[in-house]
């Protein structure tokens, strides 16, 4: 049985529907990310799960118990907000021990637990300080320790890293994930940063306009996006317009017919997706399928690789491709150069035309 089940949860604010019949289930110990653009309803769903802003309709079951109508204080979760919401007038130790005190535990036991938690988040010596005296990253860890202090069954994180600078964020990603693995606590993290979701999550829930577009592992989300929206939102993607020619055949742009597996009816308008890194350049022979010549229009140096803008005349399309530095040297790539590329049929994904943008 899944640890958390969300069944057709709908949330309305007046006339506006922020969540529309959202269903998902999460296994015990899983790390799940809610990913989507701003305003898609991620926070709304998280707050419904916490009971902070209960859903209008639908059921939420946690650990076999229907918690849909329960107030937050009767549910079992710890939460970290984007603002951290640390109590500024209490020391770090008092913040972490805040939830323990009201459980009438002996003072010595609370103290031991607080030191244990502070050690766990890597702040063993900061207990006496006040939150204002800590850096952003340290405050974030205190908030995490406070949320974990009462050993909740479910940990909820709302954009916990978004207020930090890139370097600290990258380090904390690993730390949070490591901590979660060690404690085995079921965790939901809200983020609009796809890289964060891809690197941290066991499974990602991609949301758009109050609905779930896809639920899957990072590999599935990245490699087999279920909708044009997911394809566009996660990673970079080439979108080429085309038309279905027949079973296993499509025409790109103004005429080039290529191989591609699909389930559409012949004649329908489609959008064909391909990741820039999947554009094939090496090992192209006379027999390579889906092959055509392109001219390099632009090159953008991005450190370990270059992103090239390629123009083809037949079919008349523009697409981007990622070239490793190695490949650039081997093939002597430069702006204006013409070369043959191929679109590997097994990497192409087809969606109905003008579906999303």
């Amino acid at each position: 049985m899944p640890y958390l089940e969300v069944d057709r949860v709908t949330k309305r604010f007046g006339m506006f529907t922020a969540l529309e019949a959202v269903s998902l289930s999460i296994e015990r110990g899983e790390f799940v990310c809610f990913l989507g653009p701003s305003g898609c309803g991620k926070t709304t769903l998280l707050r419904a799960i916490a009971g902070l802003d209960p859903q209008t309709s639908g059921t939420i079951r946690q650990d076999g118990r229907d918690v849909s109508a329960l107030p937050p204080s009767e549910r079992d979760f710890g939460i970290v907000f984007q603002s951290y919401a640390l109590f500024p007038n209490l020391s770090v130790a008092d913040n972490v021990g805040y939830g323990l005190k009201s459980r009438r535990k002996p003072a010595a036991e609370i103290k031991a637990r607080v030191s244990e938690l502070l050690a766990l988040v890597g702040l063993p010596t900061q207990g006496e300080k006040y939150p204002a005296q800590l850096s952003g990253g340290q405050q974030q860890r205190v908030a995490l320790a406070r949320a974990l202090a009462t050993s909740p069954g479910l940990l909820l994180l709302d954009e916990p890293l978004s207020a930090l600078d890139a370097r600290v964020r990258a380090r904390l990603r690993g730390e949070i994930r490591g901590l979660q693995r060690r404690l085995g606590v079921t965790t939901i993290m809200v983020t609009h940063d796809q890289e964060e979701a891809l690197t941290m999550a066991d499974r990602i829930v991609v949301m758009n306009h109050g609905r779930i577009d896809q639920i899957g592992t990072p590999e599935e989300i990245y490699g087999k996006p279920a909708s044009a929206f997911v394809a566009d939102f996660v990673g970079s993607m080439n979108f080429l317009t085309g038309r279905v020619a027949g079973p296993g055949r499509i025409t790109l742009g103004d005429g080039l017919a290529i191989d591609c597996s699909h389930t559409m009816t012949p004649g329908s308008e489609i959008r064909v997706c391909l990741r820039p890194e999947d554009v094939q350049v090496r090992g192209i022979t006379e027999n390579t399928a889906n092959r055509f010549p392109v001219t390099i229009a632009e090159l953008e140096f991005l450190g370990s690789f270059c992103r090239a803008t390629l123009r083809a005349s037949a079919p008349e399309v523009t697409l981007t491709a990622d070239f490793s530095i190695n490949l650039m040297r081997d093939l002597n790539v430069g702006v204006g150069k013409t070369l043959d590329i191929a679109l590997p049929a097994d990497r192409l994904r087809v969606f109905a035309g003008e579906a999303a943008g």
Partner: protein
Amino acid sequence: MALAEATLVKPKASSDDIVMRAGIAVVLILLALFVAAPLWTLLSKSFHNADDKWVGLDNYIRYVSTPALMQSLWNSLWISLLTTAIVVPLAFVYAYALTRAMLPGKALFQAVALIPILAPSLLPAMSMIYLFGNQGMLKQLLGGGEIYGAGGIVASQVFYCFPHVLMILVTALSMADQRLYEAAEALGASRWRIFWTVTLPGARYGLISAIFVCFTLVLTDFGIAKVIGGQFNVLATDVYKQVIGQQNFEMGAVVGLILLAPAVLSFFADRYAQKRQVSLLSARAVPYAPKRQRGRDALLFVFCLVIAGLILVIIGIAGWASLIKRWPYNLSLTLANYDFENFDPTGWGPLWTSLKMAALAAAIGAIAIFTAAWLLEKSRGFHLVRNLVQFLATLPMAVPGLVLGLGYIFFFNSPSNPLNFLYGTLAILVINTMAHFYTVAHVTAVTALKQLDAEFEAVSASLKVPLPVTFVRVTVPICLPAILDIFVYLFANAMTTVSAVIFLYAAETKLASIAVISMDESGFNAAAAAMAMCIVFVSLATRLLHLLLERTVLAKLQRWRKR
């Protein structure tokens, strides 16, 4: 889990929700009893006769057809207008000097200008009498004129209203965006043009607000007209005469409601103005930094010097006169006027009563009003009741003290009211004072609460800590400065207020501000001045203590704010 419709969710109230709703219900009952009910009684009384029979508009018709009463209405209106026309420009220039010019001693100028707030409104009137009254030192300056009457009222009102108006205008003028001025200068606008096209429009909502506040202050003030009005009748003194003098409650109610009308109007105008004023300043605005302009600055400095000097003279005269043997014939100094037993059997009693009343109102008020604001801000659901409480919390702002006091006698004096036992006690003075000054205290509390992280309560609930515990351990300690501000505000106003409590005191609960009036009435002017000075000293001491507390104890308690 098949195709059945998803079930609607009816959130269950938590124990916190229940506690908070109960708290809000209590607040609602208290505000209904001590704000709404008295006002309602006042309104209803104006439509009934002495035998409590419904008479429709009869009382109003009688009012309109009594020439003496209509004369007071007219008197009140033109006096209020004239005072406003004098005070607002003066205060505007003073505020302009404090915010937009380079003057030495700005802080001192600002402090001096605010001194009149520490005193009851009657103090400037008493000083005017010492200067220009029958035994006035400068009586000759008036030629054959009389200070008792319209002239004296307006002159005293100017002093009384000046600091109130000044505070509004200083706030309005300090909210300026440097970038606007730089743009205007870059466009080659002259200084005069910049003043008319940038400065004045920028402060226009502050000006509207100041005009209405000043008008209402004059219209509803009781003390000045009582002391220096002579035969010149105004609305505020009419109410007193009708109710206390002639026991004509119905007519008193009618006059009270007439006083309420402009106050309510000005309340809404002020709300409108304040909303607009706030939205003027965007988050990215650059604060205005005044530049030196020798000619203008010198002129403004002289202006401020004159105004501040006059304020000091007016306060000083009352202080001096309280130490004089026999004004103006024997100017040798004495403390005899502070021997209050010789002038009034209650002696020093009223001052202690005032201190006790002010301390109780401030302590109970600060705690209760802050807690009520917290309940209102942080509770979930219960929208109707919360909106009602919100409305009742802002209502007192629109009600002049005189009108509230009138409502209180009508409501609590009625023998059929089970709360009748409150009448004539210190408790009713305390309650009335808290109700009278509720709105500003409430707004201060709400402002402080809004600055807290909105998720404290969510965190607390997730950790299963009851909200009242978080209120005591987190919310109150963080908001301590605001709570102290509320305490001082209530205390200072309780010390100086006259208009509401004049109807409510009994022999044993006479307050210092009322003792000033009664000793003045009995002709003991010097003793009255002495008592007024005692109030000034207490208010001053309170402010200084507040400053000291802020710098020491509070700073220590709030050391977690340091980085």
